[in-house]
């Protein structure tokens, strides 16, 4: 077991989740409650990470985030360091890659809150912020948890982008998935098997747990 890679993966997943939680909430809630021209196009754009081969997406991210590009330069002066080949860069890539996994379930869970419940909250004198905190978040939480679990599991397994943007630097950007890949490449099937099994076990447990509580929830309120 490559403990360094595991801890790095867990750290990356945790930080990605920490960033995507507020982003997913804001974007997901916005998409749930607003209708505008081009909304379906925007939703399609958010699904791009599902479609483009990760290595290719990784390459474009590398080009984009590198100090040579305008955006890259901007980010570099902002963060005081180059984002490619750094953990920070991985976090950004990981956030982009997980956007659809985080936003879609959150959007769906906000959409499923009846409009009248939110209106009733406003009629109870709650300001929009308080409606969010006291009514919407508690009612949407299973969707939010599901989004976070999926993002976490998915970041653990992501590999193509991480390899390209991160550069496979031990203790810095070499995640568990890359480590598994390396082991497979180096004919160390046993180590690869152990690590894959660990990854799978964790993910299956996380996801089945999510489905389980989602099912509970359905029975609870519906």
């Amino acid at each position, binding site marked *: 077991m490559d403990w360094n890679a595991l801890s790095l993966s867990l750290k990356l997943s945790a930080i990605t989740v920490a960033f995507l939680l507020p982003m997913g909430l804001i974007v997901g809630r916005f998409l749930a409650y607003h209708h505008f021209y081009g909304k379906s196009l925007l939703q399609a754009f958010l699904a791009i990470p599902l479609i483009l081969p990760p290595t290719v997406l990784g390459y474009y991210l590398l080009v984009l985030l590198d100090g040579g590009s305008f955006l890259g330069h901007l980010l570099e002066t902002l963060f005081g360091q180059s984002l490619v080949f750094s953990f920070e860069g991985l976090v950004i890539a990981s956030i982009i890659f997980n956007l659809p996994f985080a936003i879609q379930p959150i959007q769906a869970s906000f959409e499923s809150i*009846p409009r*009248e*419940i939110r*209106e*009733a*909250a*406003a*009629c*109870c*004198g*709650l*300001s*929009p912020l*308080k*409606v969010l905190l*006291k*009514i919407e978040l*508690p*009612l949407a939480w299973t969707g939010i948890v599901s989004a976070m679990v999926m993002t976490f599991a998915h970041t653990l397994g992501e590999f193509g982008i991480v390899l390209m943007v991160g550069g496979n630097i031990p203790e810095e950007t070499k995640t568990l998935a890359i480590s598994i890949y390396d082991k497979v490449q180096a004919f160390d099937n046993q180590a690869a098997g152990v690590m894959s099994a660990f990854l799978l076990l964790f993910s299956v447990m996380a996801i089945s747990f999510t489905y389980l509580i989602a099912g509970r929830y359905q029975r*609870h*309120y519906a």
Partner: protein
Amino acid sequence: MPKTGLKLWLRQTHSIKLNIKLHCQNNEVLALVGPSGSGKTTVLRAIAGLYSVENGLIQCQQHCWLDTKKAINVASHQRAVGFVFQNYALFPHLSAQENVAVSLNHLSKNKRLKYAKSLLKKVHLEGLEKRYPMQLSGGQQQRVAVARALAREPKILLLDEPFSAVDQVTRRRLYKELIELRRSLSIPIILVTHDLNEATLLADRLCLLHHGVSLQSGSPAEVSTQPVSTQVAKLMDQPNIFTAKIVEQKPEKKITQLLWCGQIIEVGYRANYKVGQKICWMIPASDVILHRRRKSSKGERENPFTGKIVDYMLLGGYVTVSIEINQPLKTYLSMSVPLHVARRNELALGIFIGVSLLSDSIHLMPYESLRNEF
């Protein structure tokens, strides 16, 4: 018009068409009635600030909540409304007590729960404070919703079909509670319902909506017995609406005479109709008086008609019969009498009976052709 209470007009030509004007004083119950889709819920939502109208003015207790001309539009949570939603819209993740406490935002947490408990006691829900909405019956949910709406000490109470989801026995209990409740409140109460009996029973005044337009306002008895048009009469579920012709005007005797089904009907003098003019008239089913079988009484001289009973329906202790006045024209009069009266007078399908139309109960309306539309 008093400065307190609610004053409202709404006008809109796009999407949901609206042309509504109404007011409701403090301590008055105004029933909004009308068929499905007539805009009742929309009016309540506009008052609560949940629906934005094109043009409108909403004033409540001297506060201006909406004035499209002055671009005033107070946010929902800043209008002090108590809204009981059609399906209650309780917060499913909160207990009954917490549901009510949400409205007590201005108090400290401790006081909030205490006061919420006392409010639940007021609506007879002591002991059920900890239950979640799905663990409460329809009637109990409705009470939680009322308690929640009142917790805020609202400037107006809005009730959207509060009784539609509960069965008849519970409903009757809830009626009584609403009647008690309004005694203790000094704010306008607007009650949406599509049940005319409910409106009559509970409301001081009634406003009839149809396709987003307020057709008539007044006391339930007034709108029901003196509708301004046949459309209103039909919407108020009046069974006896007919066309006739004015044949004589006798101001000196305070009498106007109509020709209907080949017979003269005498009604109170109405100066605003001319002889020869076609009009529509109606009489409530309860004001068609049955002639006694064996002994005659003095009422029988008033607009007497005879006809065959072609329909006989028993309904909650009362019998409603249709009397065929004129067979070729398919003219039927509908009347209702208590069951014991029907028995005593041996009413049954096919027999001929005599009835009188009480002059005072006959109401004239402008002429409109009466099709039996679907």
